[in-house]
């Protein structure tokens, strides 16, 4: 099992979700976050106060997947989140020690396998 963590542009979130759903990736969590990824800083002015915004709005997506899902999941994110400009974000893939599905108590591989796939077996 792996945990795929992606940080993407908020305006690309819908594209990413669509792309993930198309790959049958159904279980995920998102958070609105702020980050810095080498983008040029935006200058904003509020009356006399001028500021450089060092942090940009991003969305962080966390997806727990079984091993054979890692490839399609990452590919789907890369495909949908890319604009080619600095600030498109990152995808991290990390090992996971244990996973539990709260509803059933299933563990590990079974806990990150989508219901549809279990039904198909």
């Amino acid at each position: 099992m792996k945990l795929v963590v992606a940080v993407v542009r908020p305006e690309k979130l819908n594209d990413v979700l669509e792309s993930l759903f198309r790959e049958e990736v159904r279980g995920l969590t998102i958070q609105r976050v702020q980050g810095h990824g080498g983008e040029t800083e935006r200058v904003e002015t509020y009356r006399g106060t001028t500021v450089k915004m060092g942090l940009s709005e991003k969305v962080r997506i966390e997806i727990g997947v079984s091993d054979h899902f890692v490839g399609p999941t990452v590919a789907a994110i890369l495909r949908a989140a890319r604009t080619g400009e600095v600030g498109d974000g990152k995808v991290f893939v990390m090992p996971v020690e244990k996973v539990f599905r709260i509803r059933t108590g299933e563990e590990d591989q079974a806990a990150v396998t989508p219901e549809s796939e279990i039904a198909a077996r």
Partner: protein
Amino acid sequence: MNQADIAWMLVSTALVLLMTPALGFFYGGLVRSKNALNTMMMSVAALGFVGIGWAVLGYSLAFSGEGLWLGNLGHALLRGVGLEAKGTIPHVLFFSYQGTFAIITAALISGAIVERMRFGPYLAFISLWALFVYAPMAHWVWGGGFLARMGALDFAGGTVVHVNAAAAAGVAAWMLRPRKDHARQAILPHNVPFTLLGAGLLWFGWFGFNAGSALAANPSAALAFANTLFAPVATLVVWTLIDFARGGKATAVGAATAIVVGLVAVTPAAGLVSPLAAIVLGAVAAFPSYFALLYRARTRLDDSLDVVAAHGVGGAVGALLTGVLAQKAWNGTADGLLFGNPRQLAVQAAAVAVAIVFSGGMTFAILKVLGAFVALRATRGEEGLGLDVTQHGVEAYSHGEGAILVLPDTPPARAFPGVAFDFEGTGGAS
């Protein structure tokens, strides 16, 4: 001059002026948070840019001279606009009151092109539009032009303001093409309470708009006031019932829209129909706008905040129903179809058609010419980031995290010559 009239018109002018920032809230709540300020600024900027154009030239084109088609330059740069009487109020007050109408009318168009039009070209567009589309229309109906001579009834601007702005909005939305996300993903209002606040303030200001259009503190103003209260009341009830019938839930954005539709519809009729007729008018007006909204959402026309459905359809229905429900016993000037004067309905229809064709055509021409010189639209990237940051360099809901203060490179001009200011912590002289 009449002091009661002056007092009422002073208040009315302020009330109508409030409608423009109110419209900013109404529209601002309906867009995504990344475009909230841009959308509100489109209304706020109209106060300035249309206002100055009105003083310099617009007022003269609308209200100077007896021309059939256009005013003249007699009042350009406010020449001859002084303290003398215009009707029963001072000329400067009449000029100011009419100016607030020009401002709100131009601002109404912005609802069709939000979230994608660059701000500079927008300013140029509304400035030109107010001079060359609004001023002639105002002249035709209120300045003694040909629609007035035909006998078109438009008490407070159903045709001049609402149909006029909506025709421009439809054409502008079509010419600017849909937003990149239109019909691809859900674009939801970011602050519905703002929209309700805007609708409430619009209603409040609309009492000045309609009852003030009597240009006096008289029974006609009282009639217009009552109708401005009760027509939207009826629209709101009918709209809510349609909501219940269709989806089982009364929606908040629907209620805000219903109020505006009712106000728009009663605008041409305000001082011309009985209060009971106004209630009927408000109730009937709910249907065409309600279904126009549903229909528009299925088309590729990205009239983003439905200016056509609310102001165009609502305004046209109001103008036509004025031709049906007008009653000489109440207004002293003309009867409608229901009271034995079918010709009035034909005149009303003609006036609406003229407004649509003229405003649509002129808007097309202005945007074509502007578009030949500058890009009207923001780039896809700017649209993605949002127009608040890309057009204005401000955010509506800034958290301040990660903001680095940029200190001035050079100290500001010295208040007292010879006294040097020393900024602590700026790293000394720079």
